[in-house]
């Protein structure tokens, strides 16, 4: 049973539009992550957060930005979408105290930029 929610699940938009992908979790986890997933490729970490007001860049450079104003909410924003941003974006969270790397994933947001 997923306790981490992503909206929208699917989004098709035109080039130059601003988009925000929403991610919320009800588990009280401190750590949250955004991964980018392309077919046949490993998942790439693009952003993560240790907690409120904490955001860090991941391993893969991304033009997107994130914010963490509330523990449960970790939205990702693209100011001006381009076709190269077409991908699946997966939000995840983990429990800080356990610190094992076990991740809980949302169902993903598939973005297509025309």
């Amino acid at each position, binding site marked *: 049973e*997923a306790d*981490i929610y*992503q909206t929208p*699940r699917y989004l098709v938009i035109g080039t130059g539009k601003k988009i925000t992908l929403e991610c919320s979790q009800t588990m009280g986890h401190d*750590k949250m992550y955004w991964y980018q997933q392309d077919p*046949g*490729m*490993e*998942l790439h*970490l693009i952003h*993560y957060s*240790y907690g409120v007001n904490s955001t*860090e860049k991941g391993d893969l450079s991304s033009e997107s930005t994130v914010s963490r104003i509330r523990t449960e909410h970790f939205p990702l924003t693209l100011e001006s979408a381009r076709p190269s941003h077409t991908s699946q974006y*997966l939000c*995840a969270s*983990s429990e*800080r105290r356990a*610190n*094992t*790397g*076990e*991740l*809980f*994933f*949302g*169902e*993903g947001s*598939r973005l297509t930029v025309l």
Partner: protein
Amino acid sequence: AQSVTQPDIHITVSEGASLELRCNYSYGATPYLFWYVQSPGQGLQLLLKYFSGDTLVQGIKGFEAEFKRSQSSFNLRKPSVHWSDAAEYFCAVGAPGSGGYQKVTFGTGTKLQVIP
């Protein structure tokens, strides 16, 4: 830095047959190891994990995996595959990263097709 290799991009098995998905990792010490499953259009779900102790770990949906330190492997197995097991399977390794958090690295995945 750690890395994960899943040598099989695509595997096809008959329903009822046994399954083994391969995973090799590279890391200097004993990492935390995971297998996740992703059904089409869905996020990833944890199948099982290894942190320490018994090297044979049981997971959900009848899956198990064995950690073999000498071979740097963590292969996933199931004795009898069901059609509903068709999905993509990701091996992952967690190891200490900067800032004290666990850096998780994923393999490229193995897509499993189940035929009648």
